[in-house]
């Protein structure tokens, strides 16, 4: 299974990397935009995989971090601070600052209750974004002027931006593997297997888990920052609970255990939704049926 996921990840990454060429060849800029969006969501899914797969925390509030990253960029850019070297760390820090207290509270419970609480805090962030009348309220507003990187317009060039996203995605997957194999990752896995046992060994389980949640949140903020640039627009829709649900579904589809699995799940879901939306207005029915089918099939295989 691991080999299949890894192979799929490599194939899909090469396809994403070839997207600028394909877009040039077919004269279809939309192809590149789609590939960039898929790669950004893959990055978001990888950041969630660390929380769900490594730390064992089923979070249904990850869209909040994307939204916070996007809104921080919007607010800074609107105020005239469009420099990426400033807004990028600010976006990640703000997402981490939200993850810290909400994660601390949610970690007082576990399992499904953790899921419900993260969902609730995600909804809270959604309502706050909706109430920001100065930033378009319900409708959101365009990112104007576009952010610049060290004074250059490199971020505005689709190919350069796409390359940056792919580099960040690859870095995130490699880092996730690095963390997974490190001492810290082993502690997380030990706590996932049995939190009592890990605690008996002298580890502060709540603290190591909170750190994982905060790091996941910060990288989620990075993904949101990228998504805001890719869309050129920021709105509360980014914080909708369905986005959080889809991110979690991407991680689960990818088998939970591997970072690159989450990325594969993300790219497949984004491409499937896009392909279906071209064919029919009601493609989400097919997606829903497929998700249900996958879950029941996996269950049947477990039983057999």
């Amino acid at each position, binding site marked *: 299974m691991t080999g299949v996921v890894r192979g799929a990840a490599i194939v899909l990454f090469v396809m994403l990397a070839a997207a600028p060429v394909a877009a040039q060849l077919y004269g279809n800029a939309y192809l590149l935009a789609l590939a960039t969006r898929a790669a950004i969501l893959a990055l978001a899914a990888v950041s969630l995989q660390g929380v769900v797969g490594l730390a064992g925390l*089923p979070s249904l509030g990850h869209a909040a971090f994307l939204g916070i990253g996007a809104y921080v960029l919007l607010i800074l850019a609107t105020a005239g601070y469009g420099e990426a070297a400033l807004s990028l760390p600010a976006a990640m820090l703000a997402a981490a600052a939200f993850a810290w207290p909400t994660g601390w509270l949610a970690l007082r419970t576990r399992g499904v209750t953790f899921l419900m609480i993260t969902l609730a805090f995600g909804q*809270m962030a959604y309502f706050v974004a909706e109430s920001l009348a100065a930033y378009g309220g319900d409708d959101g507003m365009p990112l104007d002027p576009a952010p610049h990187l060290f004074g250059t317009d490199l971020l505005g060039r689709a190919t350069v931006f796409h390359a940056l996203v792919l580099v960040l995605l690859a870095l995130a997957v490699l880092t996730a593997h690095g963390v997974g194999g490190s001492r810290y990752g082993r502690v997380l896995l030990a706590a996932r297997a049995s939190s009592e046992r890990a605690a008996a060994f002298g580890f502060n389980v709540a603290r190591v888990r909170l750190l994982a949640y905060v790091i996941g949140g910060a990288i989620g903020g990075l993904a949101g920052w990228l998504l805001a640039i890719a869309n050129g627009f920021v709105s509360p829709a980014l914080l909708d609970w369905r986005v959080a649900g889809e991110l979690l579904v991407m991680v689960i589809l990818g088998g939970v255990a591997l970072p690159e699995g989450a990325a594969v799940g993300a790219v497949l879901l984004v491409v499937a939704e896009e392909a279906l939306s071209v064919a029919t207005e009601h493609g989400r029915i097919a997606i*829903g049926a497929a998700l249900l089918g996958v879950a029941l099939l996996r269950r049947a295989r477990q039983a057999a």
Partner: protein
Amino acid sequence: MPLGLLLVQALNGLELGVLLFLIAAGLTLVFGVMDVVNLAHGVQYMLGAYLAVAAATWTGSFWLGVAVAALACLVLGALLERLVFRFLVGADHLEQVLATFGLILLGEEGVKLVWGPAPLSLAMPAALAGTIPLYGGLHYPVYRLGLLGAGLAVAALLALVIGRTRTGMRLRAGATNAAMLEALGVNVERLFALVLAAGAMLAGFAGAVAAPVVAVDPGMGGPVLILAFVVIVLGGTGSIGGSFLAALLVGLTDTLGRGVLDAVLDAVLPPSAAHMAGPALASMLIYLLMAGVLAFRPGGLMPARSRT
């Protein structure tokens, strides 16, 4: 805030509270007894509203519409138990998330396919269409009072069933320790099927009676589901009494808190700042309430589950 307005807000809050209770009741039992997380429970609420609109339009009677919607949701709940939920018992929570998220997409998109994406509305029954005078020259819609009464009546009935019948006793036992209940020879699977179908009916009923006072659209189940989760977390998983208390608390905090908060902010902040902070803070209130309870009582106000 004038007393009359306070009364209106309190009634609105109680009304939201009983609706949330009807939705949370089934959800908390399904989760408490069988450890199954059902994200698609909000879809039942949404379907209840749509079916009520369709049946009321077709038959010309609001009351028939509500009855048909509740019954249809009961049947649908039983059917889904057979086809889906039965296989999710004992599964990893993430697989349950995957399956029930799939159900949400199916339900919401299916409704769009049949009724279109535009919101529908349902006329109130003529008998309850008027308003009655309240304190201070304010008027309150009779229908909303009826909704509150109906919700309280169903809650009382539910309390009776759970507190005074054999099935109710098993449910309480199941929420406390399902494995022990099974070991004592109770058919927990059948109990689960019953809870799932009844919970679907309650949520459908809530959607049906709420249809005249809310916009009936495909996405209406999501926000309500999240509020029901807040209620469950606050009340303590598997606890019907805790859910009732928490539902009223959430309803009152959301409506009453907004009014009180506006008054307080107006008093302490300059108008422009109060205007900015008010809406943001008001929408955070129930989540802050949840955070406060979690900080001191992580198991909720009235936890049902035994420590194992």
